[in-house]
């Protein structure tokens, strides 16, 4: 779609927003599951274009946000050990743990390197044979195979000072928990599904949404027009009274996903129960390193003392992540909690709903 002219983009956008306004005949709550969608929506100013009736709420798809403090605390504890290099995506750097953040530890002298790929951490390990390099393996199904591939590459190259601290999570179990939580569940009229997660998983794991929960769902790409079109597809289903799983992002998402990525993942990782901030422990919603690869698992081979976990007082990230409240409903939002002095993970993560609301103008910001 890069080859559309600016005028054509504007025309298409106008068309979809008009169609959405025309079709939405009652208040609709649509959830964008993926944090990357959240950012794309705010950056493109999509919320402001939609009719008042159609509301987008953010879901639990910001991996940095849903990772509980004890994971950060563990990473911080490792970073304080001498001879340890922490390799991490930039996204994790500012996230507060119970009493510190990796950024603060770095300022105090911890050796923390920002990487763009798990393979970069492997290269660091190769360059520093006398150090232990711990890669912070966070992310959903899109990212988890890249960690698995790095572990397989380390195995092949005989690198023995590379470790991962894993907190990879799976999206479908979280959605199931959200939509089926006994009574505490939120009303969601439709779901924008994470296009890049589906690129790996394929469509099958998400079929239960329509089939079991009766919730319309559209796998969406990440351009502004992709998102508008996907919203339009959702609104059309709802107007038609049907609940289907549709694929707006078919240019990348195949029904079967990416078998090589699935295979790498299954070789290294197995499903484990996992704690999600705001949702609690969800069965089989996380990934654990299999016994055969345990020597790459930091938690398994490297001892560490972690401080007792404390959550930020007053922070309502949990409710934000379930779509129960919107960020401005948190009493700290924009007051005690701002992007330069964030209180909770949802404000500090680039993908966090609170951060997006604050940075791009809360509510339907108008000039």
């Amino acid at each position, binding site marked *: 779609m890069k080859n559309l002219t*600016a005028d054509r*983009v*504007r025309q298409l*956008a*106008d068309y979809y927003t008009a169609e959405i306004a025309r079709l939405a005949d009652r208040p609709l709550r649509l959830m964008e599951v993926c*944090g*990357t969608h959240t*950012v794309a929506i*705010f*950056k*493109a*100013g*999509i*919320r*402001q*274009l939609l009719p008042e009736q159609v509301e987008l709420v953010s879901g639990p798809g*910001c*991996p*940095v946000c849903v990772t509980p403090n004890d994971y950060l605390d563990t990473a911080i504890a490792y970073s304080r050990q001498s001879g340890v290099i922490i390799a991490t*995506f*930039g*996204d994790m*750097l*500012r996230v507060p743990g119970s009493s510190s953040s990796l*950024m*603060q530890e770095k*300022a*105090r002298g911890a050796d923390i390197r*920002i990487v*763009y790929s798990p393979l970069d951490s492997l290269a660091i390990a190769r360059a520093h044979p006398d150090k232990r390099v711990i890669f912070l393996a966070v*992310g959903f199904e899109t*990212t988890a195979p890249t960690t698995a591939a790095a572990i397989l590459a380390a195995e092949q190259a005989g690198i023995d000072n590379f470790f991962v601290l894993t907190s990879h999570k799976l999206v479908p179990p979280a959605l199931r928990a959200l939509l089926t939580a006994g009574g505490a569940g939120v009303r969601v009229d439709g779901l924008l599904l994470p296009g890049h997660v589906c690129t790996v998983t394929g469509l099958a794991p998400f079929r239960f949404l329509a089939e079991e929960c009766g919730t319309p769902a559209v796998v969406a790409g990440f351009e*502004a*027009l992709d998102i*508008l079109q996907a919203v339009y597809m959702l609104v059309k289903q709802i107007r038609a009274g049907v609940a289907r799983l549709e694929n707006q992002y078919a240019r990348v998402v195949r029904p079967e996903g990416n078998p090589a990525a699935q295979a790498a993942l299954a070789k290294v990782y197995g499903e484990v129960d996992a704690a999600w901030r705001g949702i609690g422990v969800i069965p089989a919603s996380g990934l654990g390193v299999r016994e055969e690869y345990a020597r790459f698992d930091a938690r398994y081979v490297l001892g560490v003392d972690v401080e007792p976990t404390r959550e930020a007082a007053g922070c309502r990230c949990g409710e934000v992540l379930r779509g129960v409240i919107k960020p401005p409903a948190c009493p700290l939002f924009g007051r005690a909690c701002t*992007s*330069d002095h964030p209180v909770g993970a949802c404000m500090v*993560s*680039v*993908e966090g709903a609170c951060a997006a609301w*604050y*940075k*791009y*103008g809360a509510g339907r*910001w*108008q*000039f």
Partner: protein
Amino acid sequence: MSERIQLAHGSGGKLSHDLVREVMLPAFANAALAEMHDGAKVTAGGARLAFTTDSYVVKPLFFAGGDIGKLAVCGTVNDLAMTGAVPLYLSAGFIIEEGFAIDDLRRIVVSMRRAADEAGVAIVTGDTKVVEKGAVDGLYINTAGVGVLLDGVDISPRRVRPGQDIILSGPIGDHAIAIMSERHGLTLPASVTSDCAPLAGLVKAILTAVPDGVAVLRDPTRGGIATTLNEIASQAQVGIFLDETAIPVRPAVQAVCEILGFDPLYLANEGKMLVFVEQVFTEQVLNIMNAHPYGREARVIGRVTAQPAGQVGLRTAIGGMRLLDMLVGDQLPRIC
């Protein structure tokens, strides 16, 4: 304010401003400093002068389109130019790590001289400190600059008024991307290099033609045009309205942003400027700029509004509208 300096305190965004406002301004308190412009306007021996300084800590030292020396001259020359002055003299302070290759130093000072010649300034005083291996990362350069303020010119956020047009002199992000690519293993097409350039000539051309039609000039360096425009909106207590589709970004710059998760509006430029101009002079200024090598791609990217005071808004490509905030912290390469 947190108890320790973080990288973000130097990134030109919110924390930088807090540090200046809470630590530096109260200590040094004086009228010239309080203007918080690119350079101070002062009087000495009856002359109206501009005076400014910057330290240059760029890594790598040599990059596509320039090096730390060229940057150290252009950056300070540009800050002088942005106050409405003709830059005349620079100082150069080198802090060098023991073990630094003298040939590299030679290349850098030759490059400084070349940039100084182009900008019409002389490097008249200097200082060299050598520190122990590990006490500095290679080489840092500080330059300070002195210039003479042009007669009849008054560049100041006080003069920003609703209705003025905002001209950007060319595509954004080239400098930051030239630097970042080297750091992150990306290879740019040969056509994309740092925009590092001295803007004194362009500024003089504009201000000579339109001495009182320009309210503010500013070079959007650290923090990019988003941060610079927020500064001006806040200093002048006006709103600023931008049209996303009017802001030129080269495809390769856009590509790097997508790969590393950056936003071009926050990327540093070293040879670009923003001109706040009275609408009646817009066309004249654009013509002057488009005729100059450093303003060929200049265009209007937005305008000043009365409301919302202190904020910058952006109309997006699909016709949405959003707030354009200041940068918090550095942009870090991210995958989400």
